[in-house]
């Protein structure tokens, strides 16, 4: 199974719209949403739940006050300010590193597994689909992303593709969503900030040695910056495989819970079909 991850640096570039549209176009595939903080794909891809489980991605210190002799060592050594002067563990700050337990002379501190999110797998008419939701302020979103991908892989019945809606940013979760993938498609917008975000995410893809491609959404909003992006991509060897025009009808379709493909937006659909064909061609070139 080949894994293609769509990333954007910042959210809101239309990445989920592209992935949900592709879910109607590409055959023999699975889907995964690796934006575990604010997953959106399941809003457009409805299905029947086949798996739901809690995810324990972190640990939290717990003090047994019946044994504690209030020496304050734990408070002193915690580098995350997670133990208050009153010797309470502040769960939002505790990283579960265990230093406090290590220094406690009374063995009064233990680390408990902490639920940090939930993983879901559903069966849809477009294929099997996995996603997750990180608890508010949760830790270990990178590990949860890996869990989402594993859940999809675990359900694989010989599908040819895994389409992944990647995590935003350039940190741990996005690294987890692209490691081991076969290709990255960066969806961007022609804005000054879009260009600088794009450079940063492509940097991450390159850092991990994954072939990266670019799709410019709303390319006609600012032709000069679109040109700048294309020049940048050409100079740095990132093929631009899609250019989608700005169209207010796309948002209107989304308001009605429909992908532009389902809403019969011909221009958009054509462009996404082309994008997919170009991607497949480029990947073929890479394997010969």
């Amino acid at each position, binding site marked *: 199974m080949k894994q293609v991850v769509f990333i954007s640096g910042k*959210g809101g570039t239309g990445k989920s719209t592209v992935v949900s549209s592709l879910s109607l176009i590409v055959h023999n595939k699975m889907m995964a949403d690796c934006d575990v903080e604010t997953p959106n794909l399941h809003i457009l891809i409805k299905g029947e739940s086949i798996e739901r489980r809690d995810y324990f991605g972190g640990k939290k210190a717990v003090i047994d006050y019946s044994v504690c002799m209030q020496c304050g060592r734990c408070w002193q*050594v915690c580098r995350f300010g997670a133990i208050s002067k009153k010797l309470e563990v502040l769960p939002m700050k505790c990283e579960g590193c265990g230093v406090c337990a290590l220094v406690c002379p009374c063995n009064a501190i233990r680390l408990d597994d902490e639920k940090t999110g939930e993983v879901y797998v559903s069966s849809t008419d477009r294929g099997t689909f996995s996603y997750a939701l990180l608890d508010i302020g*949760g830790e270990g979103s990178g590990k949860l992303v890996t869990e989402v991908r594993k859940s999809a892989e675990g359900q694989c019945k010989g599908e040819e593709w895994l389409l992944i809606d990647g995590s935003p940013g350039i940190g741990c979760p996005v690294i987890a969503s692209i490691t081991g993938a076969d290709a990255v498609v960066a969806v961007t917008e022609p804005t000054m900030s879009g260009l600088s975000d794009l450079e940063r995410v492509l940097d991450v893809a390159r850092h991990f040695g994954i072939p990266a491609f670019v799709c410019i959404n709303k390319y006609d909003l600012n032709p000069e910056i679109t040109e700048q992006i294309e020049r940048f991509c050409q100079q740095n060897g990132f093929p631009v495989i899609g250019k989608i025009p700005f169209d207010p009808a796309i948002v209107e379709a989304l308001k009605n819970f429909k992908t532009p493909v389902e809403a019969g937006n011909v221009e958009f659909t054509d462009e996404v079909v082309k994008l997919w064909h170009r991607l497949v061609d480029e990947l073929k070139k890479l394997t010969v």
Partner: protein
Amino acid sequence: MKIAVLSGKGGTGKTAVSVSLAALIPGSQYVDCDVEEPNGYIFLRPRIGKSISVELLVPTVDVQKCTGCGLCARVCQFNAIAVVRGKVLVFPEICHYCGACTIACPEGAIKEVPRQIGVVEISQDGAFIHGRLNTGESTGVPIVDELKRNLKEDAHPILDCPPGVSCSVVHAIEGCDYCILVTEPTPFGLYDLEIAVKLMERMGIPFGVVTNKASEGVDLIDEFCEKRGIDVLVKLPFSVEVAKAYSQGILPIDVDDEWRARLALLYEKVKRGSNK
């Protein structure tokens, strides 16, 4: 008064609202906490005066003293240190700089040395400050913490927060007097808003909603907020002019009087609704 601007996801106009507010409020300080992708500088064009290196302590092992006992690897909760065939390997990118290995080592073979993970930059006039995480690093939280140490309390800091609801957002909004949640009137926007509202309720900070790219009439954000008793502070109309200006790094309030008027109104409402 510290105002935080956040949204469930990026791309809702969070930065457009933050930089516009910063430009509108005299003597304010703009603080870009989106350290993975800081964008505010594009609009505010600061002259950077001071740069602070953000460094964390990571373990290094003195091979002379190390006996290869493996205790360091056993206490590390993050698999950031491993002992392979008697040799210790440290993986700095996943190290949480907690110090457990150093404390645990019976030979005193581990020393912690500073390692840069990013920078904080402050403008000459102090009205602009942002942080930047180096590529390949896993957490921006220490950079957010450094930004928070450099707030000018008397200058109305406006914190442009990272997208999402993870720990870096929690660190950014902690201690703020008011949070502005920016969203869009789409099912995605609504879903992300619901998650952001949960975060607000958990943190107990007063907050209100700004709907960007709004059209006329009652939308699904209004309905949700009405039901939950949440203030929709202002609605910002979709405007191709604003989108174009934004794409060129021009402040929306400089091209659209409607935006300017509504952001002034937003500031008034925030003042009334905040803790201070």
